[in-house]
């Protein structure tokens, strides 16, 4: 049965779009049929991260308004057969999207895909509430710092009250994804630690994605990090997270400092 997953955060710039692309690609690599949907109307990004920006003809709003058919707006990924993108419009504003329009598109996507992953805009306004409205599950993205965690808490409250699932008295399944986890700052105690974040949010952990140049490198070439460099630390963390989303139990790896030189690696293991 199809699953609708919203990637949301409240606070901006925490890594929602990066995570949508990386998780979408990782699930597709596992053979699942995936569509990533950009809900960030007016500030679309997902097409760039997916490397599909030059193939966008129709978008979410065109489909919602009946100007284009869903099949005309969907863009298939060049690298992965089973990965698709439904882009947002860059020129329209958020009000062009209606509740009914979103409802119909999601219902249609449910018949065609295993996973429908919605990249939410930042904030708690209409765009964000529409992105979460029809979701079955949510990935709440947060960085290990206070304001981001507080906004995540706020978004969790909205997931529990403003989604169709919640209104029907059901529970929307929630996961916390901690991104931009800076290992050296963590070592110096400059960030909120994982336990504190989980205690505050009281939602199970989906994964910890380290702060990494590999993410920037991947987005510069228009590729989800899980495709661009699957062996990198952030890609491995995203791949593990995708496995957890599909129901597997995978041990949680807390990222550790990687910048060890050759000599360190050679000699680092010597017993004291």
């Amino acid at each position, binding site marked *: 049965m199809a699953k609708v997953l919203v990637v949301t955060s409240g606070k901006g710039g925490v890594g929602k779009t990066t995570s949508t692309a990386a998780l979408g690609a990782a699930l597709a690599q596992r053979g699942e049929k995936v569509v990533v949907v950009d809900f960030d109307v007016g500030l679309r990004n997902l097409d760039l991260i997916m490397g599909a920006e030059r193939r966008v003809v129709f978008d979410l709003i065109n489909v919602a308004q009946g100007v284009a058919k869903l099949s005309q707006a969907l863009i298939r990924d060049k690298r992965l057969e089973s990965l698709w993108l439904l882009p947002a419009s860059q020129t329209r504003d958020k009000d062009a999207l209606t509740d009914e329009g979103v409802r119909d598109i999601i219902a249609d996507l449910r018949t065609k895909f295993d996973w429908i992953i919605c990249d939410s805009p930042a904030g708690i306004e209409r765009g964000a509430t529409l992105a979460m409205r029809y979701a079955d599950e949510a990935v709440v993205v947060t960085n290990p710092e206070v304001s981001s965690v*507080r906004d995540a*808490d*706020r978004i969790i*409250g*909205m997931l529990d009250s403003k989604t169709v699932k919640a209104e029907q008295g059901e529970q929307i399944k929630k996961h916390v994804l901690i991104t931009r986890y800076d290992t050296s700052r963590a070592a110096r105690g400059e960030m909120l630690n994982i336990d504190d974040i989980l205690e505050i949010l009281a939602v199970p952990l989906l994964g910890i994605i380290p702060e990494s140049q590999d993410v920037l490198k991947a987005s510069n070439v228009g590729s989800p990090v899980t495709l661009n460099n699957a062996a990198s630390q952030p890609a491995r963390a995203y791949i593990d997270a995708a496995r957890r989303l599909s129901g597997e139990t995978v041990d949680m790896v807390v990222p550790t400092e990687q910048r060890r030189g050759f000599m360190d690696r050679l000699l680092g293991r010597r017993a004291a």
Partner: protein
Amino acid sequence: MDAKVEPQRQVMRLRGRSYVAFVFSPFMPIMNWLEEIDATLAQSPGFFAGRPIVLDLAAVELSSHGVAHLVSNLETRGIRVLGLEGIEPDGLDPKLPPVLSGGRGCVVEQVEPKKVEVLPPPPPAPSLLLRSPVRSGQRIVYTEGDVTVLGSVGSGAEIVAGGSIHVYGTLRGRAMAGINGNSDARIYCQKIEAELLAIDGYYQTAEDIGETLRRQPAQAWLDGDVLRITPLN
């Protein structure tokens, strides 16, 4: 659409019928008069339910706007105005009830409201139980009594209670107990990291809460007019 021409059209029949209606005669100042209405309603709620009334404006001088205001004021109290009396129809907003004339006084039988119309007041619920955490941005207001949270209260969340507040988790947001002047109300939590605590209007912010108490089980209570926060155990 094809409209059929009816061969024998029915002539519209005008029939008369008279009804008994309550007449309200407001006096100046209108505010005082409305207070009397409110007092009546407080004693027998539902008294005017299903009984439209006629408004006799002979004793007051109101503009069309003033009349409209009065009519809507009555409507918010559940009183429907059937017609107006004692005022010139000229210059009145056509959306207002029509001006009537030729009314005659009569004795109204059964002025007591029917028993079924009076809803028994709901039994007072002494406490509100929240089974999930209260998240940032959420505000719970329960003036009737105690609030119990099975979980944490997030930073930027707010609980307002007429009685005491019990948090089985970390209290990071704001908690205001005893807001109706109940100085015996208390706030209890498993871990205190509150942004603000208040009882009956006396408050302390995070700054005031001693560092030694932070993250400990604690309670807040009023000692005269001093808000005290002490460890729980």
